[in-house]
């Protein structure tokens, strides 16, 4: 992730003051899938989102973002051969934004209300059609004061390389802290404890934190 991107993301978190961005369309105890209201407007990989629920809001880390056709049988085809710019494709085919959708998958890392968080799985999965919000910078900072969620994250069985997600998540969270480097060191030490039996994996993950 280059600095420009991080800045972008930072402003997004700040600007998107708890902005509503998606809705839960599939949920299980350990993860849920949300559909974005706007095409290609998913938060970046590894960022923290939450969905309103009872007994408390469910927090999760985005581990996969996917844009695809709404209808499973209908494949997206290339349309821009005779056009100058990519945007023109959408201007020429206004129906496209209705036929395509962006989904993201979220790994549940905790739940809670106010600042009383539990960094373990909630008693029940996220409610379907629950609204999904981005987390404010302060909230990210407060949530990541405790790093107990890291063991949920790095031990998850997901189709994307989990260390990539963990790395992205920590880089993202570090920007919410006053001293990003100190946060990363703290997180690195936590990881060293969790991954004590696999130092090679630890080494490669640590390289992703920079």
């Amino acid at each position: 992730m280059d600095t420009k991107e991080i800045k972008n993301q930072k402003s997004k978190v700040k600007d998107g003051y708890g902005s509503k961005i998606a809705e839960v369309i599939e949920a299980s105890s350990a993860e849920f899938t949300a559909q974005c209201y706007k095409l290609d407007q998913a938060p970046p990989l590894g960022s923290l989102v939450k969905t309103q629920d009872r007994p408390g809001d469910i927090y999760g880390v985005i581990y996969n973002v996917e844009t695809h056709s709404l209808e499973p049988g209908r494949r997206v085809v290339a349309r821009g051969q005779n056009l100058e710019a990519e945007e023109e494709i959408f201007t020429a085919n206004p129906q496209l934004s209705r036929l395509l959708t962006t989904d993201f998958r979220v790994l549940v890392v905790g739940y809670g209300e106010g600042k009383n968080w539990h960094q373990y799985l909630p008693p029940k999965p996220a409610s379907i059609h629950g609204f999904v919000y981005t987390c404010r910078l302060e909230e990210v900072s407060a949530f990541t004061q405790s790093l107990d969620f890291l063991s949920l994250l790095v031990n998850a069985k997901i189709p994307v390389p989990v260390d990539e997600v963990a790395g992205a998540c920590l880089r993202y969270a570090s920007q919410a802290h006053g001293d990003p480097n100190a946060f990363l060191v703290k997180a690195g030490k936590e990881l060293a404890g969790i991954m004590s039996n696999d130092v090679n994996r630890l080494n490669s993950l640590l390289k992703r934190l920079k």
Partner: protein
Amino acid sequence: MTSQSSEEQTPLGVVVSGSLTRGVEVRLDVSVSVEDMAVGRYVAIEGTKHRFFGMITDVSLETIDPRLAITPPDVSDPFIAQVITGTATYGKLRVLPMLTIGGDAASILEGPQPAKTVPAHFSGVKLASQRDVEIVFGAEDEKRFYVGTPLDMETKVCLNIAEFVKRSNGVFGKSGTGKTFLTRLLLVGMLQKNAAVSLVFDMHSEYGWEGKTEKGYKVKGLKQLFPSKVAIFTLDEESSKRRKVSTDVVVRIGYDEIEPEDVELLRQTLNLTEASAQTVYQLAREFGDRKWLETVLNLNEDDGKQLISRLNIHDSTYRNLRRGLENLRRFSFLVPRARENSVQRILEYLDRGINVILEFGKFDDFAAYILVANLLSRRIHAKYRENAEREMGGEVAPSRPLVITIEEAHRFLNPEISSRTIFGRIAREMRKYNVTLLVIDQRPSGIDGEVMSQLGTKITCLLDDERDLDSVLTGTSGKSELKSVLAKLETKQQALIFGHAVPMPVVIKTREYGTAESYKELGFLEAAELKKKTEKDIEDLWT
């Protein structure tokens, strides 16, 4: 000091395993660098029921996974280095719990007790605070004498002098590690706390009036600091005069005072054969204990021949003996008849509570030293013994405890002769007759193991010979741990004290001695004032 007090608050880590005999293992916290730790430092461990006081005996580096040692992480990256430190790799201390300091009223009254158990798992470990050290080693009072400070601390470590003099003690260390300075301090301590009177056999004339540091500047001896409580006896008046030392008594020893046992001890130094040493007893039977030496030395050749044929002594044995005894003639302090009884004079002084330092002057060889020290001590000991027996009968008051200081102790106390010298006996009998030893030696392995084991308190500066280390630590609990501490002492001003007079082994940085300030602390001001007063009195007398 401020850094010290902030350090006290820092937790070092937690107890993770261990045993009472081997000591407990403490995993260092991430924030603590192994490089800040040092063997010999004190730590306090907060157990659930007791507070433990222990000493760091080892520092080691550990990794959570052996693979880390094979493929080390990229520590050139500061981030990775920072993360790895204290997590995947960490420091470990071995701490020997020595004492428990109880929290309840009863245990506060009892004071620190030897640790009989270990702190529970994950008990917090901190560097010992000044207060902890004070609780353990006590503050300076009428019984305790401040000898130095623990490493990296400002607190005073005090030696219980009253306990100290109850047994024989030893000061050990390689040459040049500060044995003499330490001994001088101990002598001052005994004098200051009035716990005992000292008789010092001062081979190199460095305790009485003035000594020299290795750097060459002069330090005051005991007489200068406490003129009214110290008397200097000398064997070599001229040397004392040259050094401008005011001596109190010149010691002369008559031939009649030398007994066959004295010669036997000198067998090696006088180069006598076993047979000629035995012949001495024969001669003593022939001429009487008091006259034999003078008679033999005055025999002319013919008389000699007659004597050996009469007593059936082999000619070569006789010649060997004569040659050896002739050596005694070069000791000018030996005279056919001494005008006054030196032993009596020494005893008079000691009875008055005045410490006696016997300077050897130019006679700083082993023959003179062994002869005189042994001869005088034997008689003094006999008197003390007599007094002790009378005291048991209720006739007299107990005599003042006497501490005899001897240097090069392995010459007196080696396994071959220790059973025969008076010092061997004193060391074994301990305080029964109120006489104890302060032995100073650089080669403790040369001293009889039996004697070593009887020493109450041992104070040792750096030793690096394996045998010396073993011999000093015989019979001490936590021997191997102390050994690592002892071998790592600095060559100057550091010593390990363990035994009777301290509650637990302690490494100290010896108290300053030799600066004007240090003299003042030791009570010199009073002496200086006294001197001024005397001078004024004399002036008044003349005006």
